[in-house]
């Protein structure tokens, strides 16, 4: 049975029809055209589908869509401030913190959650917090540098 699902997506109220077994990732990508979150493993392992749910990082592939009723979802599409890139986006770009870019939207959302909670994390804290986001191109070092640069106020 389809249900009307209402939640806040990147600051705007949305209503969308969803079935009980559709994930938030399904609804974002297939029904709302929000393709920033990527489908990597559908197991919660890779981190490419990471979004923020009421400010906390969440795997949109492990979140049944109907459970986000009334909550706030932030995807990479909601990171830009007007026409300007978010500081993390600028830093990732300038530090070359990706090659193919498939993991980047999930990386950015996890990094935002980290800096929102802990604006000046240590290198070890960054490594631990970002451990759930895989980058098969191996850009981990640059990801850590980019996050450190934002934490240091360079962006």
């Amino acid at each position, binding site marked *: *049975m389809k249900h009307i699902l209402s939640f806040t997506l990147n600051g705007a109220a949305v209503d969308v029809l969803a079935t009980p*077994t559709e994930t938030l990732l399904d609804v974002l990508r297939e029904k709302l055209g929000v393709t920033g979150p990527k489908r990597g493993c559908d*197991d919660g392992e890779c981190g490419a589908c990471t979004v923020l*749910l009421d400010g906390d990082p969440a*795997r949109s592939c492990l979140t049944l869509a109907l459970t986000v009723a009334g909550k706030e979802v932030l995807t990479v599409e909601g990171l830009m401030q007007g026409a300007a890139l978010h500081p993390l986006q600028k830093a990732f770009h300038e530090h070359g913190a990706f090659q193919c870019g498939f993991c980047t939207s999930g990386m950015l959302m*996890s990094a935002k959650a980290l800096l929102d909670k802990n604006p000046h994390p240590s290198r070890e804290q960054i490594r631990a917090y970002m451990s*759930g986001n895989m980058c098969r191109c191996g850009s981990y070092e640059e990801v850590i540098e980019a996050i450190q640069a934002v934490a240091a106020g360079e962006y």
Partner: protein
Amino acid sequence: MREVSYFAPAQVGEAVKLLAQYGAKATVLAGGTDLLPKINHYEVKPEVVLYIGGLGLNYVREEDGKLVIGAATTTAKLASDALVAKWASALAEAARLSGSSAIQTAATIGGNVANASPGADLVVPLLALDAQVRLVGAGGGRVLPLKDFFVGPHATVRKPDELITEIHIPKPAGKAVFLKLGRRKAQTLAVVNAAARLVMDGAVCKDVRIVLGSMAPTPLRCAKAEALIKGKALSKALIEQCAAAAVAECSPITDQRASEWYRKNAAAALVARAVAQAAGIES
């Protein structure tokens, strides 16, 4: 097309009524970190989804000399909560070592118990802490020792109309330690996990719990190993005998994470280390 029903009750009573109505047809959803991969890959095809995230079961409090943890409390909260750190630091450590940040904000203690994985990270320290599980069904509630809850891999004594609502931990005596060995440091399932809790009087072990995970069909209290050191002065040799006895009580399998041989050797090392640390002996 198969119709699936979805319910998100706001009260435990309502959830229990739905469970009584749908029984085994109902799939209980909390954080979803164990269930969703199975739904995504069509290993589980739920007829009725019962989401319990709205029941208000996300709490940690001290009550009648016990630590009471709501079933929907996340591992992120367990890893950072001051009461858990004070009463059950081994549980906090297990929560910290389980999954990544995005998994920890979703995964719940009730889900870890209900899923009944042989290597469930939270269950291993909970058994060492003599935890109890509270179940509520249409006929009322019951509290039973967690050690009597598991019957096999992903199998428990929970009846289809019962909901896990709380985990209780009595005020622990002595010091408890949790250790985990995985294939890598982060976001990994255990090859072996172990917990030990010891009450010491000088060099003498007055009371002890030893638990191994991923070494048997369920996380296992190693009673023979415990009996071997209870009431005795601890020495390095005795701790090693105790570790060997713990491994001898288990029946590990070879799977994609490790071989039986490796598990046995790793488990002996982890038990010896956990016992020594819980006893306050350097190892």
